[in-house]
């Protein structure tokens, strides 16, 4: 039987890693809802959730429980299959990004080197793009299947917004790819460990990428798809119970994983700042260094999550035409400009111009 010729060690290793990443991102998404409320409260001189458990730490559990026990309503004139498919797709595409992110270097157990990346595919970052471009279907299908004008408006807004900002995001990324010369996230992180972080090589690219990441995650200033005061609830107006919870959850998972992508691309991934990692490995061993690196990675991600929340409670929502102007007339020319400058500098460097 050829079927059984699977390398079982690799299989179990990857299976454990997948379970860890999926449940990890779920837990982090859960607690980012708590963090969001807490950060909002602190920025607004309030207390935030503090009743459920110490410091309100069980609040996400209480919220989840509430969502599960609410009545599930499927509108009569909706296409039921698509109505259920919508939130599933949103959740699925949100989780899939985690597969290519290097969560750490490698662990050495049982005489095996275990890479802390689920799949080091050679298209790396393009895979992230593919999955992100799929993410819009969850919103579109859900919005259309609700058979509600407001939902449809939200869905259309989301679709056009995500498509518009994906372009600028891709163009900003091309400049980065010209610098790194690889698509694999693991290799990019490896390059940043030896030299400067890509942020210092591509500051403009990072800014564009950051803005586009906000837009792709449907976060405030770009949360037009669910603008409460214009569209009731946007694409999830008709949703209730855990199907609504899935949409809200997917947003937080997206936030977490896009922070992870940004950290890996621009801020050295699991690189420990101001420290020579290879020298540290010889001192305290691979496993400990990997654990420290993962902790550092998560700290960087937490920083980005805080940035997401900080921006949400500072900057008001765009108007729709402003959004489109920003995307098409500012970010895309800017990223093209960034690409040209980067190309020129690389060419000069290759021809031994020292500056």
């Amino acid at each position, binding site marked *: 039987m050829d079927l059984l010729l699977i390398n079982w060690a690799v299989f179990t290793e990857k299976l454990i890693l997948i379970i860890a990443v999926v449940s990890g991102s779920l837990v982090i998404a859960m607690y980012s809802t708590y963090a969001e409320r807490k950060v909002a409260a602190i920025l607004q*001189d309030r207390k935030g959730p503090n009743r459920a458990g110490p410091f309100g730490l069980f609040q996400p559990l209480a919220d989840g429980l509430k969502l599960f026990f609410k009545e599930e309503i499927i509108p009569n004139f909706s296409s039921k299959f698509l109505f259920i498919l919508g939130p599933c797709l949103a959740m699925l595409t949100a989780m899939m990004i985690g597969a290519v992110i290097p969560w750490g270097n490698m662990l050495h157990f049982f005489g095996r080197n275990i890479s802390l990346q689920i799949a080091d595919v050679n298209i790396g970052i393009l895979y992230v793009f593919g999955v992100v471009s799929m993410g819009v279907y969850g919103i579109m299908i859900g919005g259309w299947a609700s058979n509600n004008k407001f939902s449809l408006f939200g869905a259309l807004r989301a679709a056009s917004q995500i498509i518009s900002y994906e372009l600028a995001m891709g163009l900003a990324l091309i400049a980065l790819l010209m610098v790194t010369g690889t698509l694999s996230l693991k290799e990019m992180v490896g390059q940043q460990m030896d030299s400067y972080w890509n942020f210092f090589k591509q500051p403009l690219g990072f800014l564009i990428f950051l803005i586009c990441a906000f837009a792709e995650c449907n976060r405030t200033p770009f949360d037009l798809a669910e603008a409460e005061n214009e569209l009731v609830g946007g694409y999830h107006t008709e949703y209730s119970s855990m199907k609504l919870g899935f949409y809200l959850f997917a947003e937080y998972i997206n936030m977490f994983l896009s922070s992870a992508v940004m950290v890996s691309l621009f801020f050295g991934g699991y690189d420990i700042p101001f420290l020579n990692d290879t020298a540290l490995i010889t001192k305290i061993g691979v496993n400990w260094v990997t654990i420290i690196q993962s902790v550092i990675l998560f700290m960087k991600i937490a920083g980005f999550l805080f940035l997401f929340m*900080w921006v949400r409670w500072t900057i008001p929502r765009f108007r729709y035409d402003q959004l489109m102007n920003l995307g098409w007339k500012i970010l895309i020319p800017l990223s093209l400009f960034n690409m040209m400058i980067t190309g020129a500098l690389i060419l000069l460097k290759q021809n031994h111009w020292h500056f």
Partner: protein
Amino acid sequence: MQALTNRVKVVSRKPMTFWERMYLPAIFKGMAITFSHIFKKDPTISYPEQKRPFSPVFRGLQILNRDEEGRERCTACGLCAVACPAEAITMEAAERQPGQEHLYREEKYAAKYEINMLRCIFCGLCEEACPKDAVYLSETFAPSNFQRKGFIYGKDDMLIPDPKQDPEGYKKALGSRAKHPEGHGNEH
């Protein structure tokens, strides 16, 4: 045009400079402002654990007072009901029987004394009208209820504890408004 006050602010309609049109400096400024709020003290009072003290002139739910021997002061004269602008107070008088001297201070007492807390506007006129210092506005407010009849407070809701049996409870229920428990508090 001549401005009526000196508070007029002239709106600048100049086209924005390049620096302003970049928006990023303004965004960073705004983010710095929100960030500075992290270090500010929040004014919240976490209610059930912490309570804000009532102001000395706060007028809450009525109480029916007792004298120092624990007898009801109310004599059912009806002056409070007359004074009440919301007509929230009703009462029925009864004659004190021999042997009830330890219960009622005067020879006429209120057999029934009801205040509709939904009508009451907590103006305190009943307190001022009372010649016997029998009714006072305390420092509590009516808790919520599911039914209207729950807001009609009778004598057993409003009578304060006996000072001889429960001096602590008496003092607490009396509050700080009844300054002269011996009477004549409102006459000067």
